[in-house]
């Protein structure tokens, strides 16, 4: 066992990268849930984003286009969910699960001709001076732009929810849709937009996996990241910064367990492999002392009957 082989700076840097896909998808889902909608189809939207982004990058040669298309792809799939749940008033849990099934199938069909291709690499943001700082430079200033985008998005969502009028309306819709409707807000329209925003974020998260973290296209490559993202939102008690915290925690434990294995720590591998999940549960239990609760209208069907 040689713990000195673990470099804390590199560990923290990898943590940021490992956390990014679930962070992006998680913050999107947070907005959806704050609007009172439970979309369990994150995995389906992520994988669709992954393939849309991959295809667009291969065709245009530009990862920027890739990410844009990934967001569009995710949002389009989310729109299907919005049609079902907001206009056809279908059950949200079942619609979300169906969306995942649909997204997995769709992405595999779309991606048939893209197996084994290598996308052009997304450059790292090399910030002069800052990137060269010892420790801090490695941890914070040596990443691709999407890592920063993820964090910026968290800040933006936090600020918007807390200070802006849009945020206020969104929360009102999520807490009590009947009251919001009575006040003259377009409940359905706001929810549809929130759902599409969530889809776009999930799409970005998926594309981060297929374009930067892996990067290649293989069927089913998100391998459950969407479920983790869903769990993050609950974990965070619907608070933006805690999504970031949760993503770091989860990404951190994942990377740490691999580090411990490579360093030859004498803990059975199967226990190390299950540690990210167990630690998430433990932290959640500790945090359940906090009595903040889910948006009151979460998952309830809205129909303007008056």
């Amino acid at each position, binding site marked *: 066992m040689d713990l000195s082989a673990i470099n804390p700076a590199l560990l923290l840097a990898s943590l940021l990268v490992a956390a990014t896909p679930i962070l992006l998808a998680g913050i999107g889902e947070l907005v959806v849930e704050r609007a009172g909608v439970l979309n369990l189809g994150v995995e389906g939207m992520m994988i669709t984003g992954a393939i849309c982004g991959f295809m667009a990058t291969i065709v245009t040669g530009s990862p920027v286009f890739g990410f844009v298309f990934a967001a569009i792809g995710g949002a389009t799939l989310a729109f*299907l969910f919005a*049609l*079902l749940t907001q206009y*056809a*008033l*279908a*059950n949200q*849990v*079942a*619609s979300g*699960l*169906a*969306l995942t*099934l*649909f*997204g*997995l*199938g*769709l*992405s*595999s*069909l779309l991606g*048939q001709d893209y197996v084994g291709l290598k996308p052009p690499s997304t450059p790292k943001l090399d910030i002069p001076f800052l990137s060269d700082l010892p420790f801090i430079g490695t941890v914070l200033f040596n990443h691709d732009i999407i890592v920063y985008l993820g964090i910026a998005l968290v800040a933006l969502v936090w600020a918007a929810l807390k200070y802006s009028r849009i945020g206020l309306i969104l929360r009102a819709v999520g807490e009590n849709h009947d009251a919001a409707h009575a006040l003259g807000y377009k409940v359905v329209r706001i929810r549809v937009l929130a759902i599409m925003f969530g889809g776009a974020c999930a799409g970005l998260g998926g594309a981060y996996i297929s374009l930067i973290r892996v990067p290649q296209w293989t*069927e089913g490559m998100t391998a*459950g990241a969407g*479920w983790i993202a*869903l*769990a993050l939102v*609950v*974990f965070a008690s619907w608070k933006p910064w805690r999504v970031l915290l949760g993503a770091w925690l989860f990404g951190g434990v994942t990377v740490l367990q691999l580090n411990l294995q490579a360093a030859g720590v004498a803990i*059975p591998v*199967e226990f190390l*492999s*299950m540690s990210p*999940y*167990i630690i*998430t*549960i433990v932290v*959640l*239990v500790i945090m*359940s*002392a906090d*009595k903040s609760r889910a948006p009151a209208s979460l998952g309830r069907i809205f*129909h303007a*009957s008056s």
Partner: protein
Amino acid sequence: MLKLEKRPQPSQTFAYLTPIFAIIITMIAGGLLFMLLGKNPFEAIRTIFWDPLFGEFAFYYRPQLLVKGGPLILIAIGLSLGFRAGIWNIGAEGQYIIGAICGAGVGLAFYPMEAWFIFPLMIIAGALGGWAWAMIPALLKVKFQTNEILVSLMLVYVAEQLLASMSLGLLKNPEGHGFPGSRNLKDYSSAFNDEIITGSGMHWGVITAFIAVIFAYILLNRHMLGFSIRLTGEAPRAAKFSSVNPTRLILFCLGMSGALAGLAGLFEVSGPAGQISIDFNTGYGFTAIIVAFLGRLHPIGILFAGLLMALTYIGGEIAQANLGLPAAAIQLFQGMLLFFLLAVDLLTNYRIKRVRKETV
């Protein structure tokens, strides 16, 4: 202009008609999809929906519907009780795995002894295993108000790691030349959950699924506990003021769904699957959530939904082999079927009214 108007009572007629509508719409949309993929749409639809039931080899596929649908129905029945009361166990997959490990573990502990009591013991162990795994989120929810969705989901991943560890270690077949996976219970008659009538597809798991349907039906319609469940789900405030004990309800619903999922795992591992292996679980626990909602959380509805899901799986495999349709197209098709089934349910609860715009 069209306008939705909520029906005072869900329409009985439409409750029966809508699934048929949905299937017809899916056939049309799916047909278009298959045409796009260069296949004959009529042949594809016939292969998926007709051949398993009435085709040349239906004698083989019909029993297979029970084999595939049995575990789905069994798990979905358990889940539906909780879902009705607003208790969200989405970790049935984990409880299914643990039930299988415990049940198979008990059976293998007795190997090679042959005795009548081994299989009943395995059933108890399977149910207890699933129950215990579900008790973790239940107790955490009762004690610390921890969210059960997250805990039950995380425990699925933990169970998967445990399964891998068991197939590679404790339960590994000592005569398996070092390969992962347990002994095959099909070769151990005391532990083998065989078909009760050869060729019927009926094994004890299918019987248990049918019993569960009847049990749930009686519970929900005739029993006080069933009333509490429905009340909590439909009118949480009223439930608070009545005599419903939320702690008891949480423990019952999660425990019941866990035990049934564990049973499903046990019957699968001792019958159709035969052995514990790294990839033993195939997503029944997640698919069952869809089945529960497709069946509108109603026991009889779940019975049909489970069989319909099974039909699309089996028909889908035939379509892959015979028509060269990719598995992804089948998945997409299943997704569409679910979408339409969910969407048309609108007609059960709402009436579409034509509203003429007022002209002055």
